[in-house]
């Protein structure tokens, strides 16, 4: 509340992502393997190895497997499934789901796509028959990992936290930073620095002229 700039938070965990959120824009840029059901005219320029050639309008033939970013796949996906059918990425499938249910803490979620939870929540839009399992798995993974995040964020004061956040995905990192900020603010308050006026972080980079310059 005392911040000068409030960013638009990510809506990816909710029903729909937020248009103005930078995190959502980055998240929806991740690729999704997709199978085309009809020919996609002129997209062959981007997918040269799948293209049907210049004579048939440079189209991508039906039935080919390509990788599209999430925003494009969501836009093209239709319930009557005329244009494409989506395959779930590996980490949301059965094999990895059992890994997560065995022990969620050891998995390096940053490597598995840095937006594991957000991307997974938006995947539920594609009406796959495994939706219930995916959402359960996302939930249980988070529950399993949450306690360690909370513990480490509340007890790592003035230390290098790179080892702690290395295996967290973006949403968990956000939570970790919220915890760290709370801890730092509390320590600041204990030391009595809370009542000192400091420069706002928006203007700290402005190079102000020094007082001596103005005297000349």
């Amino acid at each position, binding site marked *: 509340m005392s911040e000068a700039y409030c960013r638009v938070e990510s809506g990816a965990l*909710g029903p729909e992502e937020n248009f*103005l959120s930078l995190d959502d824009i980055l998240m929806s840029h991740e690729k999704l393997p997709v199978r085309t059901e009809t020919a996609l005219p002129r997209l062959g320029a981007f997918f040269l190895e799948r293209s049907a050639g210049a004579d048939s309008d440079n189209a991508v033939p039906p039935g080919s497997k390509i990788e599209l970013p999430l925003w494009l796949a969501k836009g093209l996906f239709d319930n009557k499934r005329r244009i494409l059918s989506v395959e779930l990425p590996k980490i949301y499938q059965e094999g990895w789901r059992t890994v997560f249910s065995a022990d969620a803490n050891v998995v390096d979620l940053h490597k598995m796509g840095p937006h594991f939870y957000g991307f997974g929540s938006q995947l*539920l839009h594609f009406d796959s028959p495994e939706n219930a399992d995916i959402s359960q798995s996302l939930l249980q993974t*988070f529950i399993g990992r949450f306690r360690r995040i909370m513990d480490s964020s509340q007890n790592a004061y003035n230390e290098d936290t790179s080892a702690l956040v290395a295996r967290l995905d973006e949403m968990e990192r956000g939570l970790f930073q*919220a*915890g760290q900020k709370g801890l730092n603010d509390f320590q600041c308050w204990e030391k009595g620095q809370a009542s000192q006026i400091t420069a706002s972080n928006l203007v700290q980079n402005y190079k102000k002229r020094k007082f001596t310059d103005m005297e000349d």
Partner: protein
Amino acid sequence: MTEELDLMGQDSDGSSEEVVLTPAELIERLEQAWMNEKFAPELLESKSEIVECVMEQLEHMEENLRRVKKEDLKVSIHRMEMERIRYVLTSYLRCRLTKIEKFFPHVLEKEKTRPEGEPSSLSPEEFAFAKEYMASTDTYLKNVALKHMPPNLQKVDLLRSVPKPDLDSYVFLRVRERQENILVEPETDEQRCVVCVCVCVCVCVCVCVRVIHSGNIPPSGDQPRSANKSFSPFSRDYVIDLEEGSQHLIRYKTIAPLVASGAVQLI
């Protein structure tokens, strides 16, 4: 400083009735409005009469202090009290302004479609601020990005792009008047399940962060704190009774009308 104040209330047919409040009660009402505003996810009704009375009261106290001769201790204690009241007041106004800035298209839309007789959630100054803010954002987006786009993409629907206030977020509350038959709705949507638990555990983190952060004045322990806490994440449709003095963690949407009427206090 124990003069009584007249608080001008208005009822629906326009005639004004006077409710007499002691300054202590006025400050308590201000604190309640402040805490409700802080913890509610949406912009609540504008309590401009409380704001005006508190400002009058502060001016009064300032005048009295100027007239009194310099006995250091009493004067400095009174000044400290004035600073604290002023802080609560400004924090309340700042909280409202932050929410207006965050949800500006929805706030203006709500004001436009508000039925007659329902109290406004914006004071006249806040309304002017919201309109100017919207106009400035529109101009800014147009000049920076939209006018360089191809002609059919030059509009941004702010009402759809700016996120709505999340009325499903969970809030802590204390019950001040006993309520019966509150309908608690279920979480049936699978996606909502993910949100819901993530939100719940995030709320738990935020409780630690928030208690430290917000400079919360501890609530006066007049009502007995019963150990009656209910936590309802994945509930079916059921009906609960809220006992007086109990504390709950519940979705904001369920109890929004109770907050507006003052029957519960957000903590």
